[in-house]
């Protein structure tokens, strides 16, 4: 199983080559290679602190890379002009691991920030669209006028997703979107991602530890260890993989309990 796919670059939403990122003397990502195809949901797994968030932040240009090449929609991000970057930033939405909502704005205003910045819509439509997004991610209408400090952890995740989806982006980065959600909400979350992927052709780069999400929404899974993508493939391929870390990850006690339950429920 190779990290490279033979697909031409216009079929790829994200293409990362020979990426090196480090802090101080420590190299977090070392010669990392990754392809994310257009229209797919890629689940990204790896131990805590292995650099999943760092990779997402590097692709987004928030962390300086030491070496390597990052292409998004076939364009090398280093070569883009200022306008090119602005145009690119319209096409992606980001759900940060800790939400990163603007604390001085209500949920509604948070969702409207990118709309105000990039679009000229009538105030009524902007209001309606923001409230629609808030409803789509499963928040109650009353939540729209709350401030981030008044929200629970799960609500923050949802509000942050609503903001990430504000401009109907083509590519979304989700950093542990379902951590901190109850299983029912997490399943709804997955459902929404799936619907958006199928209807809008959304490409999703999802960092997650939620095995349920990996099974239910991810088209492919990539695993990060030792600063590299050690394997990519469908969940079945990952389950069959030989790498010791993958075996513990997918066949550990928690994972096998889940696989067993799944097998029983589909078998029954």
């Amino acid at each position, binding site marked *: 199983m190779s990290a490279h796919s033979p697909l031409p670059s216009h079929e790829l939403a994200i293409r990362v080559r020979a990426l090196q990122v480090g802090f101080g003397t420590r190299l977090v990502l070392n010669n990392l290679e990754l392809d994310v195809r257009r229209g797919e949901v890629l689940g990204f797994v790896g131990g805590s602190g292995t650099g999943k968030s760092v990779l997402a932040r590097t692709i987004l240009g928030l962390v300086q890379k030491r070496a390597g090449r990052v292409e998004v929609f076939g364009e090398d991000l280093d070569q883009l002009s200022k306008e090119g970057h602005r145009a690119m930033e*319209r096409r992606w939405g980001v759900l940060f691991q800790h939400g990163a909502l*603007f*604390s*001085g704005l209500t949920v509604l205003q948070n969702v409207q920030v990118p709309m105000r910045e*990039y*679009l*000229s*819509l*009538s105030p009524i*439509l902007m*209001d*309606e*669209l923001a*409230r*629609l*997004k808030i*409803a*789509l991610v499963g928040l109650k*209408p009353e939540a729209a006028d709350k*401030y*981030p*400090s*008044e929200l629970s952890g799960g609500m923050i995740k949802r509000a942050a997703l609503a903001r990430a*989806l504000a*401009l*109907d982006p083509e590519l979304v980065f989700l950093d542990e979107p379902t951590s901190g959600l109850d299983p029912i909400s997490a399943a709804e979350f997955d459902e929404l991602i799936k*619907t958006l992927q*199928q*209807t*809008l052709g959304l490409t999703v780069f999802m960092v997650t530890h939620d095995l349920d999400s990996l099974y239910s929404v991810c088209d492919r899974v990539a695993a990060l260890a030792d600063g590299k993508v050690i394997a990519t493939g469908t969940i079945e391929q990952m389950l069959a993989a030989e790498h010791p870390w993958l075996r513990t990850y997918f066949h550990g006690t928690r994972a096998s309990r889940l696989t067993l339950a799944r097998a029983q429920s589909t078998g029954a």
Partner: protein
Amino acid sequence: MIEPSFTQGTTAQALRFGLGGCWVISAPALEATATQLEAAARNAQHIEIDLGEIIALDTAGAWLIDRMRCAIKAHGGDVRLVGARREHDILLGAAHYRPFDVKPPVQGSLLVERLADVGETVADAGRDLYRGVSFLGEVMSALVRLILNPARMRSTSVVYHIDSFALRGLPIIALINFLVGCIVAQQGIFQLQRFGAATFAVDLIGILVLRELAVLLSSIMVAGRSGSAITAELGSMKMREEIGALRVMGLDPIEVLVVPRLLALLVALPLLTFVADMAAILGGMVVSITYGDFSMDVFFDRLQNAIKLNTFLVGLIKAPFMALVIAMISAMEGLAVKGSAESLGRCVTASVVKSIFMVIVVDGLFAMFFAAIQY
């Protein structure tokens, strides 16, 4: 990208619209096209909207189309959406129209609002005073607990804060006071020359600097430099629930965070005041010698005649009180921070403004007190 558009036609039973182009949020004409379509369809009885030719649809486009459908229906027309591709159908279902009954903000009368504002501000000031006194009590009781049980004193923290408040603030405070000493001397000599009493400028420098200026300038500088830092530190800890974390571990935030800063300020401000005294007198001396043409002997002779020990002590006695005022206000504001970055900014501003104001008020009270006891 192809802009959204529609064509109009009729079939046997219905008015028929064929939508085309990209009905997506990034199309500038999206909203206008939807409005036009709604106007054209408004008064018809039977309407068919064909979605088959749409190139791209997103939630905004789906919302507008479904909103239009509901608006026409509310008008008594009957609408059918036909020819939608499967994925567009799912999207229309997900982003279906729903009314959001948003209550418009209540518009009160301007006069009443202003009056209410004034009332609120006054009540706030009263509450501030009340909270201030109770906070002072809390801090004092924590202080007494620590004095009775000195092992719990966080001496590392105290030393660390003395370093950051006193040592790192020293250069700028010395410089400011040196310059103010120079200015007072220059003005004193210049104005008193006209009465042939230029040497009395030395009395002016000695008394003014030692009694008032050095301690006042140091306190104002510390309020701006260290008071704001205390508020920002405690405030961001409050924002991230670190204060709550301390509390549930059985640690008293006042004991852990406020008392060390208070003690550090109590040590730092008198030290800074002393340095400020020296710097200002040095500044006065430099100007007296270079600009006033006094000899060194004359300067020191006049200075010894003008000031006594109590002139120096009056300034120094005030310093710990100023430190207490600054520490109380900045810690209280820090702990009053709510969840947002904006509230942190507001509290830091309030902390600096209130500290400086209270420093000046306390200085005025001391002036009256010392005058009354003729010290």
